[in-house]
């Protein structure tokens, strides 16, 4: 078949869609430009998509201020332990549930599945976490969501799709269930584990609400919760912190708007950095999820 000609329609289509797509990221470029511009240029409305009167003052504030870095450390810790726990529980649960011969399998699957349909809601969960004494500890951010049921089911369906012969060989060699899981099944989980793992990481990084309700001490806020407070009262925070000389020089070149922009950008940066992986695995994950058990 001859190659179809490129028509005017094709060009209009490519340009039109291009404009829409670029519009999706222009606000972020604007944010970046604001974060590197002087407060005077920003308030005069001169900043578009390139920095005006380039300055790093906002970023210097972030580093010297301390609150941001502290919140970031808490978030990194939380993402690390939270994801690790999510993965461990998901794998440990998904593997036995993938076995048809498991006595009571239906009961256990239902036990987990029901939690996707009904829950106690915000208030009873809040009261429980408070009663357990988890408030103001990192456990309040990790334990309540430690078992992501939907992703566990995705993983379970994936394991069910693996050929049985692989395991049987291990059993004949005398491996027990734990050894089979760790040495045989785990290495085969590759892409599906990456998918649910990235999902956990993004969820833990992006969550701000649990930080807000379970941390009564603002110094314990994870990053997104700290950023949330910036949306509300960064102006006040800036005014109250202008005491020492070093900070004074920085503050004269920045404003609440540029400082906020810098911190929002830094808060989005880790996601941008893992984005190529997210894109790769999430597109794959879409198909893994629909595997019928």
């Amino acid at each position, binding site marked *: 078949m001859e190659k179809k000609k490129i028509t005017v329609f094709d060009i209009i289509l490519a340009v039109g869609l291009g404009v829409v797509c670029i519009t999706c990221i222009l606000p972020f470029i604007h944010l970046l430009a604001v974060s590197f511009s002087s407060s005077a240029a920003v308030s005069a409305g001169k900043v578009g998509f390139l920095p005006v009167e380039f300055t790093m003052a906002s970023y210097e504030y972030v580093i010297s201020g301390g609150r941001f870095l502290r919140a970031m450390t808490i978030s990194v810790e939380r993402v690390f332990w939270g994801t690790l726990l999510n993965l461990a529980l998901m794998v440990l649960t998904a593997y036995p549930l993938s076995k048809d011969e498991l006595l009571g399998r239906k009961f256990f699957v239902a036990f987990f599945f029901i939690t996707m349909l009904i829950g106690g809601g915000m208030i*009873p969960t809040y*009261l429980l976490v408070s009663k357990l004494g988890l408030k103001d500890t990192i456990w309040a951010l990790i334990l309540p969501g430690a078992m992501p049921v939907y992703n566990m089911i995705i993983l379970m369906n994936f394991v069910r799709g693996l050929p049985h012969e692989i395991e049987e060989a291990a059993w004949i060699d005398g491996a027990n269930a734990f050894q089979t899981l760790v040495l045989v099944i785990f290495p085969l989980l590759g892409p599906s584990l990456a998918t649910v793992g990235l999902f956990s990481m993004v969820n833990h*990084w992006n969550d701000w609400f649990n930080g807000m309700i379970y941390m009564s001490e603002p110094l314990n806020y994870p990053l997104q919760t700290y950023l949330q407070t910036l949306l509300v009262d960064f102006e006040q925070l800036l005014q109250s912190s202008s005491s020492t000389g070093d900070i004074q020089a920085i503050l004269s070149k920045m404003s609440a708007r540029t400082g906020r922009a810098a911190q929002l950008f830094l808060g989005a940066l880790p996601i941008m950095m893992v984005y190529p992986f997210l894109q790769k695995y999430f597109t794959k994950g879409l198909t893994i999820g629909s595997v019928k058990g």
Partner: protein
Amino acid sequence: MKKKSFAETIKSQWQYYAMLLPGVVITFIFCYIPLYGVIIAFEDYNVSAGFSSPWVGLKNFTYLFSQPTFVRTIWNTLFISVWKLALGVVVPVTFAILLNEMRSNKLKRFYQTLIYIPNFLSWIIMAGVLMDILASDGAINMILHSLGFESVNFLGSASVFPWTMIISDIWKGFGYGTVVYLAALTGIDPGLYESAYMDGATRWQQIVKITIPLLMPTIILMTILSLGNVLNAGFDQIYNMYSPAVWETGDIIDTYVYRLGIVQAQYAVGAAVGLFKSLISAVLVIVSYVLADKLAGYRIL
């Protein structure tokens, strides 16, 4: 092989049960114990008496439904979420079809990369960006001004606010839907288009007669699966951008529960709203899974 007895089966499978134990315990504590907590929705709960607070039956519910500020949140929730649901289908489908019509695969992939980014950013980041560009002196109003339009109070006007939420939610999420539909489109046999082209079908005819009908199962599936979210109008998004000035149209069930239940510590009434929402959502989710199975042959279990 002889059939094993019950005790033997348990004995041979103990390692499986050992693996299940941590997940079962965690799920029991954090998903099942809070279910017991819903009884406080029927109590005049106070912290010192705990779960043995005086039983008041449906009083919390009758109180709630006598509050115009609560009934209002149901309508606001439905308005915002139904529009999000409808546009959340139409926009990505349209976009996927248009992207699919593009000749250059490289450009197609590049565009996909751009629109998929906001999907992964938190609503905190998105709210920060939106509040900056939608402010009265923000980028959007500057553009409107230079084009000779009146400035719009996107976040502070009660009549505009729900639309700001609907459109910004579509903006954040349509990349995900587009990727899903594009994946479905790549599964269509190119031979169909070639023979249609041979028969002289225009591109428009090819879209209407081939692309859309073959995309229909995916569209139906995605729509059904989003039904369970009708009562979730988007807490993360709305909480971070609303203000008392727009409560009239922008206050949703979840923001109401939060203010009442956690900020004002009216746990019983908050739990009552939560239970009300949870029951309706459960029915919707079950219906949507049954429909997905019946109409689209999709089963998660």
